């Protein structure tokens, strides 16, 4: 965020410096990210889980709805790695199915809500005036009603067919407010910068200025925010399903699995521990990646280490 993103490097070329030897901003960011070990491990785990939950189910002997009457409520065995529940359903197959749902929803919600946040924040911050007041007032309004309750209110009228799609839409509609405030704050300071003023005096339209000059300069905040929102969206979706308003049976989500597991968590801990453990792992990985990206994209945000001067 410290320096404006420039797309051409003709100035440095003219000054006689060999451009080819310069590391591009992207390489620098990537290198800084790779040096952050927890974030890299988290990225690897998350990628593995994401690929695993889509490729593993066809290879398993059990479908997530299949009932094994010979193995009711059994602790983890070689046949059922995560054990079975009271109906004899294989918990590994169910957990994988739940992960598919939860990760898909989390990813889509984070992407869509970040797009909304960027649009609203950039418009409010760039134009100011009545647009700013109206949009920020809307943000205040949506923050007053706990959005979680609003989403839960709407869910009973959703059909079974496109439920996941509507859950994504709902969580996106109510998940952009705080990020949009951050984008607005950054845009307001960018608006006064020389390159924006120059573009305006050259007659570039407002839309183009926002798309070409404002958004690329808040991109790092947007990327960090998207990743951190994945965790929030997954917690939101599983919470809704936990209460019984999200994904409906016979389909499963990590939330419904945990809700089923809590009933017998004291006597049959594996029914609760495996889905809950997976959920925490996913969210933790998303948060670690977000933190790693923040350090890589925005080194100024990280205070200097002890003993080193700024």
């Amino acid at each position, binding site marked *: 965020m410290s320096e404006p993103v420039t797309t051409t490097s003709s100035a440095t070329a003219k000054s006689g410096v060999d451009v080819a030897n310069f590391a591009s901003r992207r390489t620098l960011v990537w290198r800084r990210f790779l040096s952050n070990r927890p974030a890299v491990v988290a990225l690897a785990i998350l990628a593995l889980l994401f690929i695993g939950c889509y490729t593993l189910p066809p290879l398993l002997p059990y479908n997530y709805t299949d009932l094994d009457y010979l193995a009711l409520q059994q602790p983890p065995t070689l046949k059922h790695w995560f054990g079975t529940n009271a109906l004899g359903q294989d918990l590994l197959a169910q957990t994988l199915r739940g992960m598919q749902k939860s990760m898909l929803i989390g990813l889509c919600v984070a992407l869509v809500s970040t797009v909304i946040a960027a649009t609203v924040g950039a418009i409010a911050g760039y134009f100011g005036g009545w647009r700013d007041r109206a949009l920020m007032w809307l943000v*205040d*309004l949506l*923050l*007053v*009603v*706990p959005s*979680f*309750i*609003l989403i*839960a*209110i*709407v*869910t*009973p*009228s959703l059909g079974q067919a496109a439920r996941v799609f509507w859950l994504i839409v709902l969580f996106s509609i109510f998940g952009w407010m*705080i990020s949009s405030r951050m984008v607005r704050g950054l845009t307001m300071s960018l608006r006064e910068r020389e390159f924006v003023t120059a573009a305006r005096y050259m007659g570039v339209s407002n839309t183009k200025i926002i798309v070409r000059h404002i958004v690329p300069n808040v991109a790092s905040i947007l990327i960090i925010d998207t990743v951190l929102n994945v*965790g929030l969206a997954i*917690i939101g979706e*599983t*919470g809704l399903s*936990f*209460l*019984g*308003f999200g994904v409906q049976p016979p389909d499963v989500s990590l939330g419904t699995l*945990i*809700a089923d597991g*809590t009933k017998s*968590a*004291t006597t049959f*801990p594996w029914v*609760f521990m495996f889905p*809950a453990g997976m*959920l*925490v792992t996913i*969210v*933790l990985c*998303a*948060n*670690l990646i977000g*933190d790693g990206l923040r350090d890589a994209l925005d080194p100024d945000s990280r*205070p*200097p*280490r*002890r003993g080193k001067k*700024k």
Partner: protein
Amino acid sequence: MTRFLARRLLNYLVLLVLASFLTFGLASLSFHPLDSLLQRNPRPPQSSIQAKSDELGLDKPIPIRYTHWLSNAVRGDFGTTVAGQPVADQLWGRIGVSLRLVFIGSVIGAVLGVVIGAWSAIRQYRLSDRVITVLCLLVLSTPTFVIANLLILGALRVNSVFGVHVFEYIGESSSTLGGDAWSQFVDRLQHLVLPTLTLALGAIAGYSRYQRNAMLDVLGQDFIRTARAKGLTRRRALFKHGLRTALIPMTTLFAYGVSGLVTGAVFTEKIFGWHGMGEWVVQGIATQDINIVAAVTVFTGATVLLGGLLSDIIYAALDPRVRVQ
């Protein structure tokens, strides 16, 4: 200062009315409150279904229904539930239950969060700072309903080790509540510990993360060095100049924090079997009850706004610039 607060209060009231309209409208569009009557077996006579429909004004447009509801709500009448009881009967008892949870949770969360965050900022990159940072990240990645269940599992372990019920995790007091005031107090305390801890843990982790960052920003500023240079002790410089300045951005966060706690209370009440507003809204949505949901929204909205107003007051107290304007 008074005018600043009065303006904020007015703004909050308008927001509250609009927020209640939004929920009322959404609930009216989405719910079918007659379904629970129609699905009863034997089916109630058409006349009683018609009576319920008339009472809820289902044939009228939503804005008219809302103004009718609002004019009654201002006088303390929040309508009746689908089952036929007045909402106001249970309202105050449930508000008491929920407020106790949210109030104690947010106070413990804010105070401990600020203390832990500031402490770990001062000890940056030492072992204690690293441990706190990792723990905070772990707690923030764990949803409320998982924390609650893990705490219950832990409490079971503790209870079986001591052989007595140290922690209680069902309801807000024992059903066989009797004895003198002291044993009643202890009983309520035993029930209060786990739900409050569930709410507070998340809040502590969230606040301390932000407080650490805010404190680190402030510690690098010139005025801290000036304060040390003019002869203040390290402790005085950190508390009087560092902590106070670092608290200012935290006050805005406090308003959002309360809204997070209200959502968290929904899960906490449901899991620990507390009959509060959060449990009620789940029940209200499940039975498609517009009046319950609207009443709970007014409560949650008012709680969030109260938190907002409180954070405005703290902000004005900490930051002299607000008072001058």
